[in-house]
């Protein structure tokens, strides 16, 4: 494997956890949805 190829494959590497980038993207967006839902519950509980 040449240096350039090695570098290229490293740049295309999958995430170190979570399986794939798509999964990680979904986790970030799901986290946002859960937070908004929790904030909504929080707002209603204390208003």
């Amino acid at each position, binding site marked *: 494997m040449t240096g350039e190829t090695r570098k290229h494959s490293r740049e295309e590497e999958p*995430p170190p956890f979570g399986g794939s980038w798509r999964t990680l993207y979904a986790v970030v967006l799901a986290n946002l949805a859960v937070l908004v839902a929790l904030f909504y519950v929080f707002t209603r509980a204390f208003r």
Partner: protein
Amino acid sequence: MRPLDWVVLFAALAGIVAYGLWKGRRTRDLDDFLVADRGQRWHRVALSIMATQASAVTFLATPGQAFADGMRFVQVYFGLPVAMVILSATAVPIYRRLKVYTAYEYLEGRFDLKTRTLAALLFLALRGLSTGVSLYAPSLILSVIMGWDIRVVIFIIGGAVMLYASTGGARAVDNTNFLQFLIIMGGMVVAFVTIVRLLPPDVSFLEAAHVAGKLGRLNAVDFSFDVKNQYNFWSGLLGGCFLALAYFGTDQSQVQRYLSGQSVAQSRLGLLFNGMVKVPMQFFILFLGATVFAFYQFTQPPVFFNPVQAERARAGARGAEFRALETEYAAAFDEKQKAAREYINALRAGDDAAAESASAGLKAAQDKANGVRGGALEVLKEFDAKPNDTNYVFLSFVTRYMPAGLVGLVLAAVFFASMSSTASEWSALAATTVVDIQRRLLKRDASERYYFVSSKLATVFWGCFAIAFAQYAGQLGSLVEAVNRLGSLFYGTLLGIFLLGFYFRRVTGTAAFLGALAGEAAVLYCFFYTSIAFLWFNVVGALVVVLAALALNPLTRAKPDTSEA
């Protein structure tokens, strides 16, 4: 401030400067200076990104915003995680593949030199001005606390940042950002725990929160749609997404942070971590402010939180009137505290009707206190046309009520917040000045060493510029909105140019350039002649750039050469 606080504060400041100098001691070439030799791991990229965004404004004005207006400001950040995903999937691989030093280098390859230069100049104008505001905020704290001339304080802080940013470049900036952010969050957690512990023993934290909520301070989400409303779910999700796309995708002070990652994966993880953590972090900072509000329902607050201005009012021509209003405010506080306790008792009894009645009494007492405060603000207008103590609420609490040593720690955290964002900004301004202006337009064939030294000198230049501009930042009103508004005047246009580059492959450089001019004109029109909330400027600017460029594109494309046919 007690002696221990001074020791903690100055030890922290001296320590971080020494750490920055030590980390930057091996900076030997341009790659090192501008992108930390592209060798940072994701956790350092992530915290450096967060430290850059979270300036002292975040930790001073945001709690004050919650105190005065509630927690709805958190919605501004709802679009950020979406933007992090979009940038991770699109911009990061492009920037990394091209091995650029600045985001604007990409535009020349994709469009042409004039589009790159326009974007670089927009960034220099935007960031050059706002870096003065970032420097001003903590200087304000010290000047109020120590009674020093604010110009001297600005000079001291700016000088400290300049020491390590101009010698160690991005390597020193990223490493100090990482450490500073950990200390900042530690300081905020300590402040929160202290507030909770200072609540009256007969009032639980949850009961105090109910009082704050009943007075409109725990209003985190509002789903109603109104383009004139600064903070609601829709403006936060859409306007906030555009703002975050522009800030993280086109602002060199952020692009430089993830360009220093070891690989695409490390840079992406840094951004995604920010997408996960930023919203809860902002919620926490706002909740800190709302908790300070709850605390002041049971402890007498000053009628105006800026002690210098309040003292000036007491000694002024209407001093007797101001002092009478302070006495009246104390009486109004007693009534409000009584109403708050009645409300809590009704909650404890589980009596809904009594709670409803007590809550009406609480709101009436709050209105009465606000009326008295309004009178005090009228007196203060003698000295300041728009008296605003939002930025002093948290600071005032810290210095009055926190134990010795912790005051120094929290103040050091606020200093670090300012230093981290300021250092990133100066480093990015220097990179853009040298790479996009000097090396590309003014002196193309100099040695690597020449540009390396130029980058150091450019950092010093921007530091001096920021220090000079900071002298006037105090006249811009609430700091949070000043910084955000300044950004929103240019970010939409910058984002539009990059959107054209990433997603509209047929658009020419000239069309993009003309579209950018049209976008900027549209944003300035909205700013001067409409009442549209500033978050929407990002959407308007980006859309006008894209639509104008698409409309003009057929006119700017070269006609196909048919001579051979």
